[in-house]
């Protein structure tokens, strides 16, 4: 078990809880998709797990280490949404920055670290971009750079906040396949915040639907039903199954608001 959340609660203002009694765990090689309506607290949940925000009650551990606000956990690789940076660092530098926080306090990255960065950029197919400035990249390319940066330390838990947000369909599929491969090759755990239930259907082993007063978590086929989508998204949907490449694929089509 890599990630364990025990009775986690969080509220910004006392009396208005956002997260109540969150309990679930993730093993290596598992992907969990977190979904819910805008503003429901998906990013808050992620931030509590990672340690950016403190749980009001309860706790979460990554490989037995509790998340705390002032002590970043080094075995987490966090991928924020692609955003502009105040200085135009090169892609290679941006990826190497992932190493800086993991060495001794005063060390500077060496040849090996840069070689590792090159290696990861190559695996992700963006080696050609290594000398480009981050501020010149498209949203999708920058997203890949951030993922490379998170992977450079071989994290045990990979956390992605809406990674498909800026990508076209083809890049979305590439990203999903990339995540699936990284997770299964390295037996790490992964949480993805996503607004695309069909993506969850494709790659997630577990799904977490966050509602205003409660939540539902479990294996994907059990949690992702038309009824739950109606309850947690407020949308009528229709699920359809078909065969593709020898695999049974289920997709949801969204019809009307409730």
């Amino acid at each position, binding site marked *: 078990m890599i990630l364990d959340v025990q009775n986690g609660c969080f509220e910004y203002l006392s009396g208005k809880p956002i997260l109540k009694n969150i309990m679930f765990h993730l093993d290596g090689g598992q992907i969990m998709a977190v979904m819910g309506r805008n503003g429901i607290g998906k990013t808050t949940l992620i931030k509590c797990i990672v340690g950016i925000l403190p749980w009001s009650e309860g706790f979460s551990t990554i490989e037995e280490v509790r998340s705390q606000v002032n002590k970043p956990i*080094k075995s*987490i690789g966090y991928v924020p949404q692609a955003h502009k940076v105040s*200085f135009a660092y*090169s892609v290679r530098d941006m990826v190497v920055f992932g190493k800086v926080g993991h060495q001794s306090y005063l060390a500077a*990255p060496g040849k090996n670290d840069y070689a590792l960065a090159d290696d990861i950029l190559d695996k992700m197919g963006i080696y050609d971009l290594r000398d480009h400035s981050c501020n010149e990249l498209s949203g999708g390319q920058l997203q890949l750079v951030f993922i490379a940066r998170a992977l450079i330390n071989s994290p045990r838990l990979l956390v992605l906040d809406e990674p498909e947000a800026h990508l076209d369909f083809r890049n979305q599929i590439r990203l999903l396949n990339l995540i699936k491969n990284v997770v299964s090759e390295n037996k790490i755990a992964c949480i993805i915040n996503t607004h695309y239930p069909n993506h969850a259907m494709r790659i997630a082993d577990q799904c977490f639907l966050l509602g205003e007063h409660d939540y539902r978590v479990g294996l994907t086929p059990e949690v992702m039903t038309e009824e739950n989508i109606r309850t947690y998204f407020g949308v009528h949907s229709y699920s359809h199954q078909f065969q593709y490449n020898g695999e049974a694929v289920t997709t949801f089509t969204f019809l009307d608001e409730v």
Partner: protein
Amino acid sequence: MNRERNSQYHNVIAFLLLLLIIITVFAVFVGQYSISLSDLLDIITKKTDQTTGNTLKTAEHVLFQVRIPRIILAGLVGAGLSISGAALQGTFQNPLVSPDLLGVCSGAGFGAALGILLGNGSGLFTPVLSLAFGLISVLLVYFFTGTKNNINTLSVILGGIIVSSIFTALISLIKYVADSAETLPAITFWQMGSFANATYHDIKISFIPVVTGIVGLILLRWKINLLSLGDEDCYTLGINPNSTRWLIILFTALTTAGCVTVSGVIGWVGLVIPHICRKFVGVNHGYLLPASCFAGATFMILVDTAARNLTAAEIPVGILTALIGAPFFAAIYRRGKKTR
């Protein structure tokens, strides 16, 4: 290729070092009192003894007691202010920031003004006050922002503005009550920033804070890269942004207070030198900080040499750096806009 970038960086540093040496030698020779090369060689090889003429003795005095301490101090202050500027620009994610961001210059200026008012500006009294108040201003900013965990950079900057205003007003108050015959001109002249009358005493006072600060910032330079990405990214990359930020602020405060104590308020160096260096070594603070150090030292020695040679009476260095720095900054800013 990273090898290219790395070797380009090493080339730039080697060039800057060479430039520093050349400018230093140049500064040693150029002055109101002319020293010839043969005189210099004689002095260096210690050929002066009882029988040597007065001119050589005067030359020796000018060299060792007037010029060299001045050059060393200018180099030290130039390096300190430049690296502080570069560090703060990265830490606060804003290339328009200068070492005075948190009121250190105003605080140190107040300490010096107080020293000149109460004492007569000589001895250890004034420098100690100046150094103390420079560091107190940062302490005040720290207490203003509170000791909560998630302090955003905006409140630190606001704290700096508040503390800076208070000390600036207090400096004006001191000038108001100061005796206009001697004390007021002394304070005013001090504020313009100058290396005239630099002595080894000044070097001894400023050496520890400035060098400590520079060494600290050099060791932390890669962490500044992470800080410049924003607190969330910084935290998730493994560094506590709050404690690292305050550590960097402490080192820049040490350096800046140490510089201002011995040279007065010299503006624009901390702002412009990092900008120039970015054009040659890029934005990575791992390379920018050492480059700013050398470039700042060279620049300051050059400007100080101009300050004491351009006219018969000396021009305070702070005036020259503003006259050179501000238009220069306007020029690079405009050029930058055109290319966009």
